[in-house]
């Protein structure tokens, strides 16, 4: 098979994955170019930690390479499978972080940084990630897929193997719980209190 990137342009992810499984490493390069940015972004948004997000992204891709020989194109989409794997890996990491005080996290970590706005953004992202650790795992996954990844409820239902109604319930309760947690830190995060 040709290894030029252009020849892969219209090929579905599953077909490229099977080509990789048949020994074509160039197919892995094409797939990584397509999927790794989104995988890393999802992990970064949930974890708010670059090093941890990179570890999760690498682990998720490694799992993809390992499952490649057994991949069945008709059963799932690679992107859906990866959303699920990354969400699970991230909630595993968030679980290990439990107990870290949100007060510690919302303090700007680097007061010497020149861009005050970036400091505040970082504080908000860290607070969001810390607040996610306090949610039940399924709620944290549903909220992050809905509000951080911008996926539709049917897509989330597919990823989480639950009904759309359950997704609606999980996202509503999760968002309400996040608001309850973060409301206490609104002023520290640069928002005016009501």
């Amino acid at each position, binding site marked *: 098979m040709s290894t030029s990137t252009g020849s892969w342009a219209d090929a579905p992810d599953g077909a490229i994955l099977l080509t990789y499984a048949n020994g074509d*490493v160039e197919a892995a*390069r094409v797939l990584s170019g397509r999927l*790794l940015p989104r995988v890393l972004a999802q992990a970064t*948004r949930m974890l708010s930690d670059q090093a941890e997000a990179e570890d999760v992204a*690498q682990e998720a891709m490694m799992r993809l*390479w*390992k499952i490649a020989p057994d991949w069945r194109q008709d059963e799932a989409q690679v992107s859906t499978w990866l959303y699920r794997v990354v969400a699970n890996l991230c909630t595993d990491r968030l679980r290990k972080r439990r107990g870290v005080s949100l007060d510690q996290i919302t303090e700007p970590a680097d007061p010497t940084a020149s861009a005050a706005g970036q400091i505040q953004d970082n504080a908000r992202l860290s607070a969001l990630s810390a607040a996610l650790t306090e949610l039940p795992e399924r709620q944290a996954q549903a909220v992050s897929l809905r*509000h951080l990844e911008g996926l539709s409820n049917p897509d989330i239902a597919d990823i989480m193997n639950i009904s759309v109604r359950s997704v609606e319930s999980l996202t509503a309760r999760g968002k309400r719980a996040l608001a309850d947690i973060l409301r206490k830190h609104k002023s520290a995060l640069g928002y005016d209190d*009501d």
Partner: protein
Amino acid sequence: MMTKSDDEFLDDIFGTAKAQPTLVPDDLMARVMADAQSALVKPDGAPKQSLFAGVFDIIGGWPSVGGLAMAGVAGLWFGVSPPAALSTWTAELIGVPVSVDLFGDTTAYFAETQIDG
């Protein structure tokens, strides 16, 4: 119940998270590609297999085991009830068994006289 203000500040935080640029560092891409390469290559320390499995592989798997079983059954059958044609063939090949009496009647008589004196 969330107030509108709750919605606004949460959505603002979500928006901040979504707006963060994500660039894949070169070293991460290199690690991922190294993983892809290694996942394709069968590791040296390959899955250990039992002695039976090793022998099984060497003799050629189930088809060979089937042949061995058939040969064993045939051998047993020939041993218990050899066909006449086989007896003729073996007789031609290795000859007919002949009984030889090494100690005939005269030998026994001779021995008795020696013992009795």
